[in-house]
Structure formats: structure tokens, C-alpha cells
């Protein structure tokens, strides 16, 4: 069994990290998780972001949150990336595979993946 000792070790490690955090992160990734999003595949998209943040140790800079329906259901799964002092980027028709690109190029590299944005989607 995943032991409670293991959880306590994570706690000790996390407490140090959280203590030195200066802000709640400069980048906020928001995944739409209403019926439209869930039906279109938002759950694996959200999980892919959470996994990537954990694996790449981006927790200091990036927070992943959920939201409801933002009204563009036909483009779900929709992911919005908010970055301080920058314009919001809205990604549409997201998949776990696309998340890898977004993490690599946008979150880590600072350059939005234009081809996945709502601007590039056929309206």
C-alpha cells in the first residue's frame, strides 16, 4: 500500500517548497470541466497538465485550476492560459498529446502554440 509514511515525506518536502514560494505562480492554466468539457475529453487534458507540472517541477510557477462552461462548447476541451502582464491564450480542441506541446513550448518556452489557439480554429 502507498504508505502514510510516504505521504508524510511528501508533506515535509512540500512544506519547505511552499514556504519559499513568493507567489501562487505567474502562470495559471484553467481547464473547462462542465458537461461539455468532460464529454469532449477534458479529464485526460487536466490530468496531463497536473502530471506535467509535477514531473517538470513547475509547481512554483504554474497553477492548474478548473472552471465551468465558458460558452464555446463546440471547441471543448478548452484550456485558458493566464500569464502576468500578457494577453490570455485560449486553446481549443485540446488533447493530452497537445498538452505536451503547450507545456514545452508555451509554459516552459514562453511562446504560445498558435496552431492550437481559438484564433487558428475554423470559425
Amino acid at each position, binding site marked *: 500500500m502507498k504508505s502514510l509514511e*510516504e505521504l*508524510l515525506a511528501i*508533506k515535509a518536502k512540500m512544506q519547505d517548497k511552499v514556504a519559499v514560494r513568493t507567489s501562487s505562480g505567474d502562470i495559471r492554466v484553467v481547464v473547462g470541466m462542465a458537461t461539455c468539457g*468532460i464529454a469532449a475529453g477534458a479529464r485526460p487534458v487536466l*490530468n496531463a497538465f497536473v502530471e506535467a*507540472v509535477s514531473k517538470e517541477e513547475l509547481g512554483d510557477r504554474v497553477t492548474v485550476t*478548473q472552471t*465551468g462552461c465558458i460558452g464555446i462548447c463546440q471547441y471543448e476541451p478548452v484550456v485558458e492560459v493566464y500569464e502576468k502582464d500578457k494577453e490570455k491564450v485560449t486553446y481549443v480542441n485540446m488533447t493530452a498529446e497537445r498538452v505536451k506541446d503547450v507545456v514545452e513550448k508555451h509554459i516552459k518556452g514562453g511562446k504560445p502554440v498558435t496552431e492550437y489557439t481559438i484564433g487558428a480554429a475554423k470559425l
Partner: protein
Amino acid sequence: MDELSLYVLDITMNSVRAGADTIHVTLTEDDETLCLNVRDNGCGMSREQLQRLRDPFFTTRKTRKVGLGIPFLSMLAEMTGGSVHVSSVPQSESEQHGTDVVATFGKTHIDCIPLGDMVSTFTTLIQGSPDIHFIFTHKTLRGTVALDTDELHSILGDLSLAEPEILQWIDGHLREQYEAIK
């Protein structure tokens, strides 16, 4: 939606949006039936809302004009010979407010879809609302999988359950429990 676990996620999101601070998600299985119960202490629904619950063109949200959560769940349950029952007490009527959804599915029915990844559903719920007290219980004939987020809070103190490292521990913890009753 091709997994029952996605319906569980969707229907539990209603409890989250109803402002509940405690949500019980209970699955009970035997060889023939799967029973899902989602019980919350959220704002509840008025009689009129309750009456129109199965109407896809009724929703309280402002971003779109359709609400498919309960219609989807009802359709799936009824297709397998099961049913959905919803009872609710609105905040305006009682201190003991909240909503109780019971859905039953015929597991052996040809139209019943697989349960799918319940662990992802649980971790997604915790990730989205780390401060809600979730009590997850999945009872099968081979054993029970259970998680009470209050127990995690008592160990972790102020740390958020939404921290990716902690979520991964929860994910692994649940998967090991499922492995044990496979």
C-alpha cells in the same frame, strides 16, 4: 461519454457548483447492478427546478441554453434497465439542505458502458475543489475502495490537496486499492 466514471464526474460537479462543502460519492456493485449515490449539502433545488431536471432545455447556467448532465445520466441508466432518482431540499426551506442523486445501472445489459477510470474521476474532483470534504466509497463483492479527504487534511495540515505531488500520491493510493480488489 464512453465511461460511466465520466458521468460520475459530471454529476458530482453539480454538487460542487451547488456550493456543497461535504460530498459523498458512493458506488455499490453486485453482479448485476451498479448503484451510484451522490449526496451533498449544497444549496439544493426548488420544486420547479426539480420538476424540470430532465428537460435538456432547462439549465440555471448563463453561458448556454441547454443542460445535459441529468438527461445524459437518465438516458444511460434507463437504457440499461435502471433509473435515476433525485431528491433535494433547497436552502430556503431548511438548514438541512442538499441534494441526493441515486442512479442504478444494469451491469449485464448490452447497452451498459464500462465503468472506466474512477481514480481519475476522484483525483479530478479533489484537484478542482481541494477544500471540499469528499467521502468516496466504492463497494464491490470483492472488497471496498475508500477515501476520506478529511483524513488526508488531518495528516497534511495546511497543504493543499491540489498540489501535484499530493495528487499523485492520492492517485497511487487509490490505484493500489483498486488493484487489491481486482
